[in-house]
């Protein structure tokens, strides 16, 4: 890789007359004047004119300026950056699925419908839910869909006074944003010093205006909300429903099911727990599960298995409506099913415990150098509040940037908002102890560097394809396209 030579934009490689793709002529008669002149494009379309080798080299070199799970350790908290198995990629591009039009009659897509049904059933079993829809495209889309299910449920009971959602102050930003999109008001509930939801703070908030309480369990500090049975009872007694944000489901695989914890509605990020690639920000998938009694509110279409073993698409009269083009990001769903089948019931239960073991191992190995604000066992992730020694002025941002120099992706930083210097680490079960040992060594080295040469750490990164960008300039004078 040499960014000095290969740092151009595709537009800067364009030469008039070059083409990278041709289609065959169908030798049918030309059509003249089918589109009247006043409906035709006026401004000529300017796209790059480049040949195939130039395009492939351009994007290959660009990929070298990127960092993925296959490149190196990616301890990004709450993102579950586990290994993305290659067989998943192979099956998801299977030609017998690749060319299926979404409006193909059911009898011609029985294999695809079965795929959807099988994944729906497996997720229901793993989540402890009655039924899942796979239609939502991402985690936030799942949250929105789940909240719509909850609103449809209350509306179905003729209760239209429930206009609020309660979320903990440690919640992902998407929770309040999804509630707002779903037309609900947000009430924040405080965390206790140990990081769990303050039940005493929650109790008085629960009245007839509350539609749902959204929780992440384990929460964003990686701590299991051990009062969940009591919380579930309080929520249900108040006539509200309990929503499970599945962003942190990974450590629960094989250990405990959201449905058994008392949750009524949940979503799963297939691109976290079920190993589908994040793709630099999507496509993901955010299936939504519901307990028995809420199935009729799920979005349509849904896939059902008939008595004769065939599969059909149906629309339930009480459904909340349609929330996506068809059945969601189908190719992503195929990858998740391949992952579940590859692990099988024999191995999937080890995923959660091994993820948790890795996180605790890192935590215990670094807590003499980094400030652990909440003692005790964590689940799949934990949060440091920066370095113990704050006298050097080295911040969490500096540590994150210095990690890039050593070939690691940074942890999640400045989230959750409960601490000033949050550094959230999630290793996942697919990382070996050797990788964790190397990471621990580097983290300790950075802590030492902060003491001996703080300026060097503060000016990191020194070793990356580009150095620190000027974000202020980008926001002050937005240039969002090439001209």
């Amino acid at each position, binding site marked *: 890789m040499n960014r000095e030579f290969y740092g151009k934009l595709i537009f800067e490689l364009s030469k008039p007359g070059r*083409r990278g793709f041709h289609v065959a002529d169908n030798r049918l008669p030309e059509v003249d004047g089918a589109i009247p002149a006043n409906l035709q494009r006026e401004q000529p379309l300017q796209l790059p004119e480049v040949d195939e080798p130039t395009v492939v080299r351009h994007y290959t070199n660009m990929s070298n300026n990127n960092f993925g799970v296959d490149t190196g350790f990616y301890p990004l908290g709450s993102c579950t950056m586990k290994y993305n198995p290659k067989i998943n990629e192979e099956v998801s591009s299977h030609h*017998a699925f690749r060319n299926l039009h979404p409006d193909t009659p059911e009898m011609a897509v029985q294999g695809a419908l079965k795929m959807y049904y099988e994944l729906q059933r497996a997720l229901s079993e793993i989540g402890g839910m009655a039924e899942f829809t796979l239609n939502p495209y991402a985690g936030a889309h799942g949250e929105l869909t789940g909240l719509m299910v909850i609103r449809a449920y209350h509306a179905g009971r003729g209760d239209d006074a429930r206009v609020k959602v309660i979320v903990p102050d440690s919640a992902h930003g998407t929770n309040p944003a999804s509630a707002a999109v779903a037309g609900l008001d947000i009430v924040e509930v405080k965390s206790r010093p140990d990081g769990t939801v303050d039940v005493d703070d929650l109790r008085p908030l629960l009245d007839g205006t509350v539609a749902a309480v959204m929780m992440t369990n384990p929460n964003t500090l990686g701590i299991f909300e051990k009062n969940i049975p009591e919380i579930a009872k309080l929520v249900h007694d108040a006539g509200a429903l309990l929503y499970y944000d599945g962003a942190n489901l990974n450590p629960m695989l094989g250990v405990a099911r959201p449905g058994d914890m008392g949750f009524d509605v949940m979503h799963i990020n297939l691109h976290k727990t079920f190993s589908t690639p994040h793709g630099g920000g999507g496509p993901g998938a955010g299936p939504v599960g519901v307990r028995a009694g809420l199935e009729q509110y799920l979005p349509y279409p849904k896939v059902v298995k008939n008595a004769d073993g065939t599969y059909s698409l149906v629309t339930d009269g009480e459904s909340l409506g349609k929330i996506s083009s068809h059945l969601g990001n189908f190719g992503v769903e195929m990858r998740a099913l391949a992952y579940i089948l590859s692990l099988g019931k024999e191995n999937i239960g080890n995923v959660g415990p091994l993820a948790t073991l890795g996180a605790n191992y890192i935590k215990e190995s670094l807590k003499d150098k980094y400030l652990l604000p909440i003692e005790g066992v964590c689940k799949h992730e934990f949060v440091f509040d920066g370095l113990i020694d704050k006298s050097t002025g080295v911040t969490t941002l500096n540590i994150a940037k210095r990690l890039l120099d050593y070939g690691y992706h940074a942890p999640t930083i400045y989230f959750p908002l409960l601490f000033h210097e949050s550094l959230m680490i999630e290793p996942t079960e697919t990382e070996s102890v050797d990788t964790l040992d190397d990471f621990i060594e580097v983290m300790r080295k950075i802590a030492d560097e902060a003491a001996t040469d703080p300026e060097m750490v503060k000016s990191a990164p020194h070793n990356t394809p580009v150095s620190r960008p000027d974000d202020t300039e980008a926001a002050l004078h937005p240039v969002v396209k090439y001209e």
Partner: protein
Amino acid sequence: MSHRYLPHTQADIDRMLRRCGVSRIEDLYSDVPEQLLFKGEYDIPSEMSERQVREFFNTLGDANRQLVCFAGNGFYDHDTPAAVSYVISRSEFLTAYTPYQPEISQGTLQYIFEYQTMMCRLTGMDVSNASMYDGTTATAEAMMMSVAHARKRNRVLVSATMRQGVTDVVATYARYHGVTVDIIPEKDGVTDADALAGMLAEGNVAGVIVAQRNRYGIIEDYTGFSEKCKGAKALFIMNCVASDLAVLKTPAEWGADVAVGDAQSLGIPLSYGGPYLGFMCCTNALIRKLPGRIVGKTVDNDGRRVFVLTLQAREQHIRREKATSNICSNQGLMALFVTVYMSLAGAEGLREINRQGEKGAHYLARQLTSTGKTTLTFPDKPFLNEFCITTTAPASEIITKALEQGILAGVALDEHRMTIAVTELQSKEDMDRLTEIVKAL
């Protein structure tokens, strides 16, 4: 506990447990109440070897029919260059997360910047975001954007010529978001401009959403629409099929404030409904209301041109419940897909692909009407590569008969109307075969 995805040996586990000061992994879950612990195994299939997984999907695939595709209805069967599939499968792109660390994410950030540029050029608009899930949700986001922009007004008008799938999703979002959706009636297959004027005069309209091409494949004449909307201070929103815009008057040229739609038509495989790609572009005036991620250009410490996520104050992780949208993960990799596709095809390639589809559709329309069994539903209206026919036999019968011959004839709109689409992938022979099937009814 050995598995190919799990690198831990028993010795590793023992060493890790010692460091954690516990003797069993279960001790790390001592805070989980006993009654919540799941005992035993999930009721899911047994572990499969890689080969068994492959065979499982082969068997499922055998239960799908491989068909010649004349179905459109928003999603089109286009060819995918091998180089596109190659680039998006590079794991540096595929296995990366959202580019939160720009120093090691320039690959992702740069392709999003290139994507934004290409979408601005295609739509003619000033600004593009980094992608939305699909065309339906992008249109729903535009609906919410118009309401946020209007502040007090909360009524949005959607043309009856919008594809049903889009209108349904917009209606779902609107119902829960507290927005009223009213349908602008159609007249002879196109949006009724006089009816629109009347509805705007009633007031309280935040946005007007129309389709180009519309649900019948018709290219509508939106002369005067932008002015009407402006007069009512409503945003003019156009839902488009991305590949059409290489030849059709752009949303910007129609005076649209927001252009949205699905970019599946830029070579993305049909894949039974996804992943596809929603796009969303707007005028400069609306940039701070635009949902989703936006990449901007800046310089690094050494003065090099670099790219970063910018204007993040609009987004959910900063503004939480005050954000313009809840979108977080979008369809990043599919944005790379269409960027590579458009690089390879270029403007000339896109025009050529449109021309092949147009020639095919007009040929097939002539052939089908010559059978006497069908007529063009709107014979005077212009179309590109998709058209609507009225059938004497039930549309479902045509679809069933064609299916027997390995052809997906189109998409039924109702009992006696169906839409048919042609791309560069269907041959004259395929079209003649479909014509014979219709003739034999």
